[in-house]
């Protein structure tokens, strides 16, 4: 293919993938900062490392927003792309990373866990996720997936000596490798069938006619299985509750948002660039066989229909019986994946926009909830059960109000961003005629409302049975909570701006490379 004649150029690399460069450099620099700090300023190590991470991530965010957003380009021998869709998802990941880093400063201090590698791993996890989303090359995709996963596996096990954390991390690692293997098999199969690893060329080759071969279907199935694992769709969700409960609270929030955003982003990209190209190269109608390729929908849509339903249903249903709030939020995050799957299933512009909006708003409310959770917790697993939340409402009005706000947002009640997100994905599905699925979906969200409200009534309507001592509230966490709370309300009342950006972002999928 002629357009693969890429020349390696540093300046172009910086121009297009500068965000990734900043992250790698910052991650490497942080290793030395850590060595220097642990020798001299042991006491302020967490704070300095944390703020360093925050600024590195913000610099990356700045690069993405100001330099990569207007681009539509490929770099590094056709491996990474900078187009609006990837940039938008990367921004969600970075936002999640920034909020998590801000909260981590307080979290590590409360749990006396300050060790430098935490932030280094966090940066690399963010890097892996962004690289995953930005890659247009199946091989790079897999490598990035592993970079992300490994960093997150270690972070999940960060509570050394805590059995649940170790158990969760090991489960995550074993099952995660299993999922990655599926993904890799799928990629290998595709490569074998088509002889290329580039998404666009793949799409061309497939649409030339071989898309109906069983091999392609198997490959698609395997890739979907591998990614569904990361997206935690039922029945690929089995690892989620243990891992989410076991991991450090802030990391759980990060995993539930950034990793999920990465997996959803790459899934959408694969699905709509390679398997159902929405438009064509550079806007020209080159794929005369696009309609044929869209016929693949007959295979994956029923699967996604059922998975979305099962995910919404079981995620919410099992969450009801949870006594531990953190575990409940884990199941709720499974349910949220189901709602987002609904948006992908719709396979229209509104659906993709809805998924992006949903990911963005979900990141805000979920991280917010985990931020409050870790403060109320005191020390990890100090006060996480519903019983512990009794009577907190009037004792800690601000924290309880914030928790209620985030939970109400997750339950999808107006005037919060959660409601708008649900509205977008549901209306996209209804537009495509999935009325029954939408109706069943909203009914599951009533189940959801039940358990979210249960936390609220525990806080406001029951009297405390035991004394809870929340940990000290660190200033960076306050900043993060203010951002998340304001965001949840702001995008609940004035969603148009973000929705418009998300809409532009998803359009870029039509012109990938």
């Amino acid at each position, binding site marked *: 293919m002629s357009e693969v004649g890429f020349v390696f150029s540093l300046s172009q690399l910086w121009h297009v993938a500068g965000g990734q460069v900043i992250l790698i450099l910052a991650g490497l620099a942080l290793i030395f900062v850590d060595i220097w700090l642990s020798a001299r300023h042991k006491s302020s190590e967490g704070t300095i490392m944390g703020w360093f991470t925050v600024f590195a991530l913000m610099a990356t965010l700045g690069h993405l927003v100001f330099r990569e957003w207007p681009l539509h380009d490929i770099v590094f021998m056709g491996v990474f792309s900078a187009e609006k869709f990837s940039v938008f998802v990367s921004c969600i990941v970075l936002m999640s990373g920034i909020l998590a880093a801000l909260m981590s400063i307080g979290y590590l201090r409360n749990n006396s866990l300050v060790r430098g590698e935490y932030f280094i791993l966090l940066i690399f996890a963010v890097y892996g996720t962004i690289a995953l989303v930005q890659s247009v090359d199946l091989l790079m995709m897999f490598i990035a997936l592993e970079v992300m996963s490994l960093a997150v596996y270690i972070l999940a096990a960060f509570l050394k000596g805590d059995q649940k954390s170790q158990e969760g991390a090991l489960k995550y690692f074993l099952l995660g490798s299993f999922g990655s293997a599926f993904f890799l098999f799928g990629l290998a199969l595709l490569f074998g069938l088509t002889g290329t690893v580039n998404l666009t060329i793949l799409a061309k080759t497939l649409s030339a006619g071989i898309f109906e071969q069983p091999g392609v279907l198997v490959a698609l199935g395997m890739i979907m299985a591998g990614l569904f694992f990361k997206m935690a769709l039922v029945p690929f969700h089995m690892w989620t509750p243990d891992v989410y409960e076991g991991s450090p609270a802030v990391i759980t929030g990060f995993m539930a948002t950034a990793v999920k955003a990465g997996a959803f982003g790459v899934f959408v990209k694969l699905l709509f660039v390679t398997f159902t190209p929405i438009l064509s190269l550079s806007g020209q109608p080159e794929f005369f066989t696009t309609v044929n390729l869209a016929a693949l929908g007959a295979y994956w849509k029923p699967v996604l229909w059922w998975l979305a339903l099962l995910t919404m249903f079981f995620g919410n249903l099992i969450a009801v019986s949870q006594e531990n709030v953190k575990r409940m939020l884990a199941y709720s995050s499974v349910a949220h994946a189901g709602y987002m799957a609904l948006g992908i299933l719709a396979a229209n512009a509104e659906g993709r926009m809805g998924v992006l909006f949903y990911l963005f708003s979900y990141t805000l409310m979920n991280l917010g909830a985990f931020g409050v959770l870790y403060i109320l917790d005191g020390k990890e697993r100090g006060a996480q059960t519903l019983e512990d939340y009794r009577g907190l409402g*009037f004792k800690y009005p601000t924290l309880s109000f914030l928790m209620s706000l985030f939970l*109400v947002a997750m339950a999808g*009640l*107006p*005037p919060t961003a959660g*409601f708008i997100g649900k*509205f977008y994905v*549901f*209306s996209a599905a*209804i*537009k495509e005629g999935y*009325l029954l699925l*939408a*109706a069943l979906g*909203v*009914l599951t*969200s*009533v189940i959801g*409302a*039940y358990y979210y*409200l*249960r936390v609220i*009534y525990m806080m*406001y*309507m*029951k009297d405390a049975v035991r004394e809870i001592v929340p940990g000290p509230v660190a200033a960076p966490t306050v900043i993060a909570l203010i951002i998340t709370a304001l965001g949840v309300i702001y995008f609940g009342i004035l*969603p*148009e701006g973000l*929705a*418009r950006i998300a*809409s532009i972002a998803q359009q870029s999928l039509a012109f990938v490379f």
Partner: protein
Amino acid sequence: MHAPLLTYVTFLPLLGVLGILAVPQRSDAAKDVIRGIALVTSLLVFVASLRIYFGFDSSVPGFQFVENHPWIPSYGISYHMGLDGLSFWLVLLTTFLTPITILSTWSAITHRVKEFQISMLVLEMAMLGTFVSLDLFLFYVFWEIMLIPMYLIIGVWGGPRRIYAAIKFFLYTAVGSLLMLVCIIGLVYFHKQETGILTFNLLSLYGTGIPRTYEILFFAAFALAFAIKVPMFPLHTWLPDAHVEAPTAGSVILAGILLKMGTYGFLRFAMPLFPEGSAFFTPTIIVLSVIGIIYGALVAMVQPDIKKLVAYSSVSHLGYCMLGLYVLSRQGVEGSILQMINHGISTGALFLLVGVVYERRHTRLIEEYGGIARVMPIYATIFLVVTLSSIGFPTTNGFIGEFLILLGAFKVNKVAAVIAATGVILGAVYMLWMVQRVFYGEITNPKNKLLKDLNVREVVYLLPLVFLIFWIGLFPNFFLKKMHTSVDHFISQVKIGTPYLAMKPDKEPNVLRASANGLFPKE
């Protein structure tokens, strides 16, 4: 361009919330300040709503005070508010009842006053917003916002089984309203298919051509949401729980205004949006309304708890409202709207009165009382007046509403009218029997010997209600004339293509109205 009056009225309560937030809740004096801010705010809202009253032109059939600004333009969602004869009195009822309710909580709610008053004001904002929204999305947003403060009011300040009641209230309402949301979106896309315009504007969506199956389906979903709220017969089970467990103020708002959301929803949304679906379900709804009337009355009769009795009487009264709506004649619909107002006033007053003795004795069981008219003469008098209004005694408001509804119903469906009319008798039975057991005879329970009569504050908040009972009862035309044009418009919207009613055309609408006017002299 006039001032955005509806926005002011709707969001003014939030200003009070800000004020309350600034006051720390430490001492009793601070609590009084908080109550004072809430009261003044709600009074200001009432005063502001009076400007709506004076600015309202009842001869205009369309919407007035319209505000329309794009909100989420890519989805055709706008901030669209307006008022017509259907919602006019409901808005005023809301602004009128809220200060009374807040005044009634002065000594009833003593802990977590701040949170309570905030909930009340947020609730008022949501209720007003629901009544004036002309955009389905905006309406839905207000409709859902309403749930949270009510959930908290029942759940935090309620009785012993408050949590059960609060969750039941929430889940029942949420199931209905979420299905409604799905159908709202479905309707919007049908409209887009037909016209190519994506809009949530209610006025554009009226008359959308939808396949019959979907129209029936959509109406069913809307009707479910609203019927739960009304509540209609088989869906009413949350109501007694919520009413009994809620604090007095919660019950008053619940009965007085929230239930009207259901009937208003039928009036504004379900029926005019889906006339065919509405026609399809007309027999079902009439049957369920009549069952509700009789069933509510019968169950009310055997309640040992005064509050539960009043709660079941709501089921019965709201049955009249639904019957009146489905009569689809001017008398019926106007009677129904008037009955909504009446029910808000008289049942609201009854809950307030029950709250008064509950505050003194901490029990609501009928058997605990007896003969208390001797120690509480003023209380007994007011209670009797409100009771008479509730059972539809002539010269009180209840009579007008029920009379108009039955008059309308008789023309369309004699059987339903006759059965519903027996509900009036049953109503008299359970109310008067309760009054007799509570107020008359000897004082059987020594604890009641020292009951204090109403104090000034209680008289102050009850008198306006008593005044209104007679005002509506004696000069109903003052209220009805604001509705005429809007109601006619509503009927013309819903009656299009309704075979069920087309068979029985309204031959002499003016004759009967004239006779009604003859009965009730103009003011």
